[in-house]
């Protein structure tokens, strides 16, 4: 029996916990403020987009250090990367951590969806009987949680007064040290080159997933002959277009995000177009003399690939910290017809090119 109980505890205790802390409602897991190898590996995998749904922490109350009835309560999402980022910054602090059920999605996104929201917070405060664990009535939320949480309703229903803390977990010790006062610096979302680079795999991956379709169309068009599809033809003409396709992905999904503030104009579509145009220009400067001797192909290259780069750059609006829905809608309203038009004109030109190649026109 003893063995069985031990086994049970060992099995259910999360790997990142280091013991328990007792509360009036029973023990809660104590959270380590150090990362171990699985935590780092999990961060890398989630950054690469390997898993989304299942990287979760059980919602509920946790302890950091040796918290008492007077200790602060910090609220976070049950996306493990959010939780890990928070606990790592709490070294030396004694605090309670309340994890909301956000379906393993980070605070900002979950707040936008409403899962990091007023109702879930109220429910979690009452489920964990937080009012019996602490004697004060203050809870600290990540600032970006304010998108989904109405502080005055929470206070009316639970008695807890919500303070929206810093945007980033790393500023929490300073925020607490400054008696819950925020400097403008810790209230602002930043968007450094590192932030942007970390997000580019999530732009490149979906683009590359669609790339085989593009490649199939290109090889089909170049390979198509009156006698059938010839592989040699497909390869000869198509290869350069495939390389330029990859360059367009590189320009739109990597270079534009990375160099964002240094590319002129505020519109992402224009930024992406400029970078794509530069890439095509440089590429044709290098290879023009050898293969792209045909004027029609040259026109298609200059039409299609900057537009592809522009479209991909526009997708990066989803990853940024400063683009609003009205602006993106405006860009799409102008951009989408242009993209569709460009793709159609390119296709027509390709058909003309083929007809010329076959000697029909």
């Amino acid at each position, binding site marked *: 029996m003893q063995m069985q109980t031990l086994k049970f505890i060992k099995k259910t205790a999360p790997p990142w916990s280091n013991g328990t802390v007792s509360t009036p409602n029973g023990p809660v897991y104590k959270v380590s403020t150090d990362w171990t190898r699985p935590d780092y590996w999990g961060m890398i995998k989630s950054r690469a987009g390997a898993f*989304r749904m299942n990287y979760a922490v059980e919602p509920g109350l946790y302890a950091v250090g040796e918290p008492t009835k007077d200790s602060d309560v910090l609220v976070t999402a049950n996306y493990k990367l959010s939780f890990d980022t928070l606990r790592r910054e709490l070294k030396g602090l004694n605090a309670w951590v309340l994890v909301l059920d956000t379906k393993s999605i980070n605070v900002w996104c979950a707040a936008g969806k409403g899962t990091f929201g007023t109702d879930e917070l109220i429910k979690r405060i009452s489920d964990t009987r937080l009012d019996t664990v602490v004697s004060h009535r203050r809870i600290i939320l990540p600032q970006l949680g304010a998108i989904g949480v109405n502080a005055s309703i929470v206070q009316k229903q639970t008695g807890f007064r919500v303070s929206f803390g810093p945007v980033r977990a790393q500023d929490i010790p300073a925020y607490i040290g400054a008696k819950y006062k925020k400097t403008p610096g810790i209230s602002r*979302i930043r968007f450094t080159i590192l932030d942007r680079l970390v997000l580019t795999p999530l732009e490149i991956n979906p683009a590359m997933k669609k790339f085989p379709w593009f490649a199939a169309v290109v090889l089909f068009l170049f390979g198509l002959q009156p006698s059938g599809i010839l592989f040699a033809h497909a390869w000869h003409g198509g290869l350069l277009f495939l390389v330029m396709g990859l360059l367009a992905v590189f320009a739109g999904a990597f270079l534009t995000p990375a160099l964002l503030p240094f590319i002129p104009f505020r519109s992402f579509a224009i930024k992406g177009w400029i970078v794509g145009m530069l890439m095509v220009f440089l590429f044709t400067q290098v290879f023009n003399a050898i293969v792209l001797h045909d004027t029609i192909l040259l026109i298609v290259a200059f039409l299609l690939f900057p537009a592809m780069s522009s479209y991909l750059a526009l997708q990066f609006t989803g990853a940024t910290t400063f683009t609003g829905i009205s602006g993106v809608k405006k860009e799409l309203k102008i951009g989408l017809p242009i993209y569709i038009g460009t793709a159609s004109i390119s296709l027509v030109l390709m058909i003309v090119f083929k007809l010329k190649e076959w000697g029909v026109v």
Partner: protein
Amino acid sequence: MKYLANVTTLQYASDKCTGCGRCVEVCPQGVFVMREKRAAITDRDLCMECGACAMNCEFGAISVNSGVGCATAIINSMLTGGEPTCGCGDAGGSSCCS
């Protein structure tokens, strides 16, 4: 970094402001500051329409059509006819949810 000029739907009626400071506390772009015990707008073009201010203004002084500023989500909503939400729950998902 600033996004497109003059597109935000942010509306602020300063006569309803009681000076509680919630908007300054929640805005991640520094759009609001306190000036003479009332909230004031610094630069509307900084607004990313996240909706945190309107959500937390108890006095109804702020309104904004909030939503995700994400092209993938908006294109998907055009195709499906739904509200634009980022595809965090979907396999693959869009990058608004790192």
